[in-house]
């Protein structure tokens, strides 16, 4: 980093106490911390002054009207976009200058709003790509089919099937992933993200296109994943039943600014939120 660049970045100021970490996580260091995070596209400030801290087993939600900058924040956290302002600390490590692949290896798994599966590959192969760094053999071993290849592949396949069985998808393992029904594709994306062994899982509209029954099931599964893997989950969702049902902390975003943060009850009664977001919904 050149000295000039360093000056351009904003100084790290002590943050006001706007973090609502659940009680069980209060004495643990946060899994992710954003300080003054922001990005400008040309003259347009898409996200600015975004501050959060998440406990290591917290489920949080990010809500806001369309175009508020929710997915942009996910893209900033995973370094698809490089932030123009502020800092992201992942387990206390600054992710400045990391590539998306490095951030994933450092522990952020994510899903996408518009599903991005490896469509021409089978369901299990999608999960095995996620397990990439837990499979330990080189190119030579695979070309010469040395014994290590078979033992590692067997181990990885078992692990992949185990992960798929969380969502009861083990029997679809050899199906082409592009031909799965919509809901199953969303679930497969979550499994693939889990396979990378993340400490923070970002879910971008996991319930989009699901019927109420599937959403209910998804809610249970999200909580179950948190309990099983002991990871933090941050999700973007428009389905208020899901957000209010499972999120311990909710942040509300409007025009790239965090306008409110708190527990579901606090958010529901927050006048600024009602004006920006929920108020419109009630009028319908």
């Amino acid at each position, binding site marked *: 980093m050149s000295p000039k660049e360093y000056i351009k970045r904003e100084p790290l100021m002590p943050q006001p106490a706007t973090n609502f970490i659940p009680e069980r996580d209060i004495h643990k260091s946060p899994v992710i911390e954003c300080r003054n995070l922001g990005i400008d596209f040309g003259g347009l400030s898409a996200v600015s002054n975004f501050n959060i801290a998440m406990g290591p087993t917290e489920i949080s939600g990010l809500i806001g009207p369309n175009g508020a900058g929710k997915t942009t924040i996910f893209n900033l956290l995973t370094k698809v976009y490089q932030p123009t302002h502020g800092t992201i600390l992942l387990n206390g490590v600054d992710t400045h200058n990391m*590539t998306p*692949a490095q951030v994933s290896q450092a522990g952020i798994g994510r899903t996408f709003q518009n599903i991005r599966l*490896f469509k021409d590959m089978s369901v299990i192969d999608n999960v095995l790509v996620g397990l990439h760094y837990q499979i330990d053999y080189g*190119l030579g071993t*695979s070309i*010469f089919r040395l014994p290590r290849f078979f033992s590692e592949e067997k181990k990885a396949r078992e692990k992949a099937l185990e992960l798929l069985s969380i969502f009861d998808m083990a029997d*679809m393992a050899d199906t082409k992933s592009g031909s799965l029904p919509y809901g*199953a594709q969303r679930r497969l994306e979550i499994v693939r993200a889990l396979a990378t062994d993340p400490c923070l899982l970002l879910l971008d509209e996991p319930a989009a296109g699901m019927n109420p029954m599937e959403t209910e099931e998804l809610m249970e599964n999200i909580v179950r994943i948190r309990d099983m893997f002991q990871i933090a989950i941050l999700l973007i969702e428009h389905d208020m039943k899901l957000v209010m049902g499972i999120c311990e902390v909710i942040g509300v975003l409007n025009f790239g600014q965090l306008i409110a943060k708190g527990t579901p009850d606090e958010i529901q009664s927050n006048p600024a939120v009602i004006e920006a977001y929920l108020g419109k919904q009630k009028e319908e």
Partner: protein
Amino acid sequence: MIKSVKIKDRIEKSVLTYISVTAVFLVFFVMNMTGALSSKISGMLVPICVYVVMALSLNLTVGIMGELSLGHAGFMAVGAFTGTSVTMMLSDSVSNSAVRLIIGMVVGALFGALIGFLIGIPVLRLKGDYLAIVTLAFGEIIKSFFSNIYLGTENGSLRFSVLQNNLDLSEENGKIIIEGAMGIRSIPKTATFLIGYILVMICLAVIFNMIKSRTGRAIMACRDNRIAAESVGIPVFRYKITAFTISAAMAGAAGALFGNNYSSLVASKFNIDTSILILVFVVLGGQGNMLGSIIAAAALTVLPEALRSFADYRMLTYAIILILVMLATNNPQFRSFFEKLTGKLKKNGKEGGHES
């Protein structure tokens, strides 16, 4: 209830490919040994192997890695010139011609890999059409390079010059190897059908074993969705360059085999036409379909020779056949018609059956 499309097990498919290639090889090998083949056909056995390997190599880039390369003949040229130079240099020290050829092919593959790696560094940072055009440019650069270099040996030392023949080789001890635009001349023909077959099998094994592994999955993940691959921690550039280097190495080995099959070798052979021809094999055989590539490469190498009886209309007929086959393999109506037709003749003519 849920409409599920089962993916055919690739192991099974790879075994099918090995068996069919071996079977066809054995038939032609025996026919060639007993002299049942005409000299025209037996002369085409090695070029068929070369083009099959080229098609496999390009299929790795286009079908598995998902990037269009229009300069593949360039890597073939690298392998052809380096590999053939090595076999020429070794003609005195290594008496066994097969060993000499294998050394030449290994050297060709190594140089192919090296050049592939070096070209891959800038090229693979581009995407789509831009990448294709830049590979085309690099292919032409390689062609021009080999038509402007002079290489010779004298008393066991190498002499090298560019653009002009400044080698000053002595009459008795000097031996010119590459002579600019004239290329390499009076090459002893050491390429055999058996070695060609072995090269095809090695390339097949490398490709199939790589596809069904951690590396292959990472490469195909980058092809299917670059952003998603990055989101699960795959370093896209690293895997693309791995695939590209392996592909270039195969092309290099094929080039070395090609060079050692003819008495003379000129750089102008490795022009855009050859690159496009190889691409036609891949597109015709189906991207990612190795058996298809093999059939297409073999059929389209034989076809121009088989059409010699049409004399003046040979290339026209060739083009028309190509267009018809393309239509037949892509048009659903044609396809169902052909499936009906082949279904009457034999039960399973689903894949790879249209080409020949």
